[in-house]
């Protein structure tokens, strides 16, 4: 999670007195676009000549050029290796993006996902030829249900936001079955929610009613009761919430929601704090998505692919979408892909073309197998301990918006402590880049001014945390001492200095196009 799009001005700074001839700076290598180095008549893939046949393309053969250049393999390797060297990564360093759970991604999981038995099978093969793949989905689903205390899992959603959509569709379907879909059109969403929550609700025709947070960063049962009514379909609540706090009144909130005839959707983005500690099903949750790419360590890949299975309570289980796994009497596993095979269930429809993110399922399964029940619980405890360790290490210098109290797996600070320094949250974040860290989530949650949300995860050693804390302390003291030059215009050591986002949005250039030929004089 993060906020982009705010105006940022690019500051012209002469930070490199030692200019090089070609713009490279030792290991920081400038790399043109493939369209500037590739050639239309070059290919990096040798392909045998096609057999001679009578064309069956009819009148649809392409005549013109696509304008897509190729690179030979050595050129392509160099291009992408150079690009990769301009990226920060969890393998390279601490990546404390709050609400994103950037934990270690075991390479074993990558190897398992690439076993041909998983990577080289087609989603529509006869089911008798893919029983191992279906068994893995069924087992993963069972484990997710055990961890969450829920009744059924919808495995096909492809990311967290897609899972939210799935959960809200199940709620809509349940309301339809009750004959109340037309009268219950409002979804309650706290101010502190991820932007995906209101966007999801609105996309399927719900209107959003905001629920204010208390001054301690949590939602009160009174505020929920105030907002509840016969027009309310559901509440979408994140727990632990985006302020890094477990909602203390969650059981009472769930009871109030149910009493009012509505459903409780829980945003599970922060599940990493509580795995093995408390089960959402025991708290009264009706639907929750699980980001396998957060809690269960499937790599985020620079923006996906993710995977967002949804677990459902008994009340919503009958409405789980197609496809789902059914155990037959003879022990064989069947993927139910159509209403006609659903055996009494009332699936609300279909979320995507096939069965979900199998590659992610294998990785998450490998992760859970490796951890075991105890290991998963330990991961959550360590994640929470690490976050509190960072919080305590910084609390005398940085301000906590809701007072000095324990957090869950992420520590939240605001910018109160930066007042009068001339340094903003953005500046502070960019200065972290120069120190070799990816910044924390900034300006989110929106309910906190200049928010800085730090999630170290369980993957960090104590020594790594100590150095991180010491670095942030040094930066904080520099800001307070008025050393603004360290912040304004930062980063100074990254492959690029601060980028002009305003310019990018004002006249968008979203693809390469050939430069206009220059007229000769």
């Amino acid at each position, binding site marked *: 999670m993060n906020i982009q799009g705010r105006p940022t001005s690019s500051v012209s700074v002469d930070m490199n007195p030692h200019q090089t001839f070609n713009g490279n700076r030792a290991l920081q290598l400038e790399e043109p676009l493939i369209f500037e180095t590739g050639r239309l008549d070059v290919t*990096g893939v040798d392909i045998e000549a096609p057999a001679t046949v009578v064309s069956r393309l009819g009148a649809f053969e392409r005549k013109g050029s696509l304008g897509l250049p190729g690179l030979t393999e050595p050129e392509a390797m160099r291009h992408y290796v150079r690009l990769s060297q301009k990226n920060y990564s969890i393998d390279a360093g601490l990546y404390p993006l709050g609400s994103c759970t950037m934990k270690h991604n075991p390479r074993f999981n990558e190897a398992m996902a690439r*076993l041909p038995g998983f990577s080289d099978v087609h989603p*529509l093969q006869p089911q008798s030829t893919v029983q191992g793949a279906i068994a893995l989905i069924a087992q993963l689903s069972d484990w997710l249900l055990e961890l969450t205390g829920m009744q059924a899992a919808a495995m096909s959603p492809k990311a967290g936001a897609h899972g939210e959509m799935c959960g809200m569709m199940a709620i809509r379907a349940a309301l339809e079955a009750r004959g109340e879909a037309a009268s219950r059109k409002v979804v309650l969403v706290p101010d502190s929610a991820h932007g995906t929550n209101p966007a999801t609700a609105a996309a399927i025709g719900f209107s959003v009613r905001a629920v204010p947070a208390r001054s301690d960063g949590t939602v009160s049962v009174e505020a929920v009761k105030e907002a509840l009514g016969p027009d309310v379909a559901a509440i979408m609540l994140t727990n632990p919430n985006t302020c890094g706090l477990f909602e203390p009144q969650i059981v009472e909130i769930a009871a109030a929601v149910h009493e009012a005839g509505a459903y409780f959707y829980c945003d599970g983005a922060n599940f990493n704090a509580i795995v093995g500690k408390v089960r959402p099903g025991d708290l009264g949750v009706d639907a929750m998505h699980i980001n396998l790419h957060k809690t269960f360590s499937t790599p985020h*890949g620079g923006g996906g692919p993710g995977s967002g299975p949804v677990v459902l309570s008994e009340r919503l289980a009958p409405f789980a979408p197609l496809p789902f796994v059914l155990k037959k009497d003879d022990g064989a596993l069947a993927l139910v892909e159509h209403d006609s095979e659903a055996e009494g269930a009332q699936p609300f429809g279909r979320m995507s073309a096939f069965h979900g993110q199998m590659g992610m399922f294998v990785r998450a399964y490998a992760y859970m*197998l490796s951890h075991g029940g105890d*290991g998963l619980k330990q991961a959550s405890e360590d994640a*929470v301990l690490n976050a509190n360790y960072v919080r305590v290490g910084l609390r005398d210098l940085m301000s906590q918006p809701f007072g000095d109290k324990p957090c869950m797996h992420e520590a939240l600070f605001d910018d109160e402590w930066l007042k009068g320094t001339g340094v903003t949250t953005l500046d502070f974040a960019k200065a972290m880049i120069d120190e070799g860290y990816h910044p924390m989530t900034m300006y989110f949650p929106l309910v906190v001014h200049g928010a800085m949300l730090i999630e170290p995860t369980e993957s960090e050693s104590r020594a790594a945390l100590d150095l991180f804390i010491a670095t942030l302390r040094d930066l904080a003291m520099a800001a307070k001492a008025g050393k603004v030059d360290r912040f304004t215009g930062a980063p100074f050591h990254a492959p690029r200095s601060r980028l002009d986002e305003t310019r990018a949005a004002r006249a968008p250039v979203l693809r390469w196009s050939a430069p206009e030929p220059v007229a000769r004089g």
Partner: protein
Amino acid sequence: MRYHPLTGADRADMIARVGVSDIDALFADVPQDKLLRAPLALPDGVSELQAGRILGRLAARNLTASQAPFFLGAGAYKHHVPASVDHLIQRSEFLTSYTPYQPEISQGTLQYLFEFQTQVAALTGMDVANASMYDGSTATAEAVLMAHRVTRRRKAVISGGLHPHYADVVRTMSHMAHDAVDDLPADVEAREDIISRIDGETSCVIVQSPDVFGNLRDLRPIAEACHANGALLIAVFTEAVSLGLVTPPGEMGADIVVGEGQSIGNGLNFGGPYVGLFATRQKYLRQMPGRLCGETVDGEGRRGFVLTLSTREQHIRREKATSNICTNSGLCALAFSIHMTLLGERGLRRLAEVNHANAALLAERLSRIANVAVLNETFFNEFTIRVKGDAVKIVEELAKRGVLAGVPVARLTPGTELDDLILIASTEINTDEDREALARGLDAFINGAQ
């Protein structure tokens, strides 16, 4: 546990430093009667060696596409992907980075997204493309929502040639959003009159080409009819390699082009992860869903890239966003882009020609079998056959004999009396022996031939 750096001593020290009595004190806000005391009903953790054995056994229970003559398509295709693609996408800096929120240290991801957007726009013949969607089916549903925003109408007309699962996804979304859908019956031989279904309430028409039965469709008259009625044409493809050889949908008047990018750079993976492609006209840019990467400059005037136009997106606009999409298919888009870069337009055309030739050879061979008919007039690398008998049973039986024959249409749309149809795809992976194995298998099962 090999992934947890904290030692018992670390934990004890850190708990003391934090100033609490024990770890559960940090969970004080959890209702204490809900705190789990009993262990989870999950197996104990195991070593990498042991976990590998368990997963290896599961994997071994699946028949892979490389173990049998393989002819499945219907939205997912087996192609050869150069080894360098997988090597590159597993580089730590690509694999283990987040969405590029901090552009100064994410130029690698941002530049490849910019290149990806350019490639997708060029392939589809459109002005602009986004940084990817989950897959082709969800991209199609998003395209319908976008058309509704652009036209301020709420009825989609769905061709009977659209992949039935894609149509299901659109129907589900439309039902939930209270939008109307006019879907035509399955159209095996591309004979439907979709133009007559367009009226003043139509927001968009969704047409797939090559369609799910393999037919190539002329989008031009449909585009004209759409535009004459103020509607948009959404063109869909599920086999991106086809664009190496067929006229791009953008050239035929499509307003939004969406498709599945799996077949370039990405494996079958039992259905996911894949990569949805999404392209449109410049004038509709601000109604587009998804992430967009744009060019800009840094403080020293050097070219750089950032995520842009985020005022369309959920984290800024919340309930007024164009889509709720957040995480998409970054790494699959990278695999697509690397493979596309290696191919270039020259390699892509050659690859497409081999696919087409292999499919043509196969169609010719199969059409010589009694009680088997190839139904297509046109196709790229996939076509439909009509067989005597139950297609599901035939495909199941051939699988037992070690041939993965194709996708029975009834697998996609049961109960539509299309029980005797099989979709057959052939790519560059197929050999003469493969073709012969399929032909003999079909002949043996249908006609009892030896």
